[in-house]
């Protein structure tokens, strides 16, 4: 009886299923997913974004929210430069350097004043934004692409902040600093083209 019921249920599910359109890369959905995946699939972006959140959490309030607020705003300005075709020198090197510097600051547990921390993060945000912005006009849907990459960037910050909460405990602080060292090493590898 149970097998019969299961069979009917499976048949019903198979009959009821509509087309999935799982891999369409056009229109709003395509634009959103290409924008969303751009920061996530680029490891140089990922480590730097996570580092921003990690450093913010390590510095504590108000840096833990201020850095993730400053970054997307300035990143958008960098993105606007990219959209408008305004050249920014050494974008890829700047992105890799962001991981090196932010990783080093975390590893050495450097506690800069809030304004200085904001200025450092803002300076690097220009490079990340420009890299996203140059691809934006060619996206399937530029607006959806912009929404996607801003949200993905913010989510990566949240990942960093969450990891940074470990710094409340002595062993966790050590782990966070080790994470900073790993981010710095990854940045150096990107900078010198080792990966």
């Amino acid at each position: 009886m149970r097998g019969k019921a299961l069979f009917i249920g499976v048949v019903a599910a198979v009959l009821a299923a509509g087309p999935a359109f799982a891999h369409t890369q056009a229109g709003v959905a395509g634009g959103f997913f290409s924008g969303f995946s751009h920061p996530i699939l680029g490891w140089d972006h990922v480590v730097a974004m996570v580092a921003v959140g990690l450093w913010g959490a390590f510095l504590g309030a108000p840096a833990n929210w201020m850095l993730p607020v400053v970054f997307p705003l300035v990143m958008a300005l960098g993105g606007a430069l990219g959209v408008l075709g305004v050249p920014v020198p050494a974008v890829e090197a700047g992105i890799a350097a962001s991981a090196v510097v932010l990783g080093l600051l975390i590893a050495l547990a450097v506690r800069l004043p809030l304004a200085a921390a904001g200025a450092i993060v803002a300076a690097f945000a220009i490079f990340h934004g420009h890299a996203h912005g140059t691809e934006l006009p060619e996206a399937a849907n530029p607006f959806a692409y912009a929404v996607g990459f801003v949200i993905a960037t913010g989510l990566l910050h949240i990942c960093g902040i969450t990891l940074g909460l470990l710094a409340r405990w002595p062993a966790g602080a050590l782990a966070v600093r080790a994470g900073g060292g790993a981010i710095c090493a990854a940045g150096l590898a990107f900078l010198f083209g080792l990966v």
Partner: protein
Amino acid sequence: MSERPVPAAVLAAALLAPGAAWAHGAVPGAAGFGVGLLHPLTAPAPVLALVALGLVLGQGRPAGLARAWGAFALGDGLGLVLAWALAADHPPTQIPAQVPLALVALAAGLAVAPRRGPLPGAAVAALAAAAGGLAGLATAPDPGGPAVAAWITLAGAFAGANLALFYLAAGTGWLRRRLPRPAAAVGLRVAGSWVAAIAVLVVALAAAA
């Protein structure tokens, strides 16, 4: 598994299998109202402005909400009627409301992002009136067709914008009250910065076009 599995499975099949019913397609004007209702949600700039304004209204005190909402509704209504009245000479698609709407979203996002309290009531009302007016200009129906159908579509667009703003503002306010105070404040600021960032890119895209 229930004691009578076969009827339960048949019921599940019956619930899963039906296609679209189109039960109310014959109601006069319903299609136009539905088109209008969704119109504010299908264009990027009005959606962005509505989200930004929802964050501002959800952050504010209930006392100022009625005034701000009134300003939005008045602006939206006037914008819709104006756009429709001008539609013969200037189709709504040619009205350059996208960039001003993105600028309103930018202003609202920047108002939410920094660490300070809610905006003064007059500033929120001005922001709401601007958002409403521009959203109305951007979401009016195209010219042509009977006047009654246009009015029904206009009513749908008005309802859609106001309903969307209601859910966004109410949702923001609900989260602000439900979440722990620091988390809610940080969440609002981060959301404001995201909206402002997207608005900057919308303006840049419009400038590059």
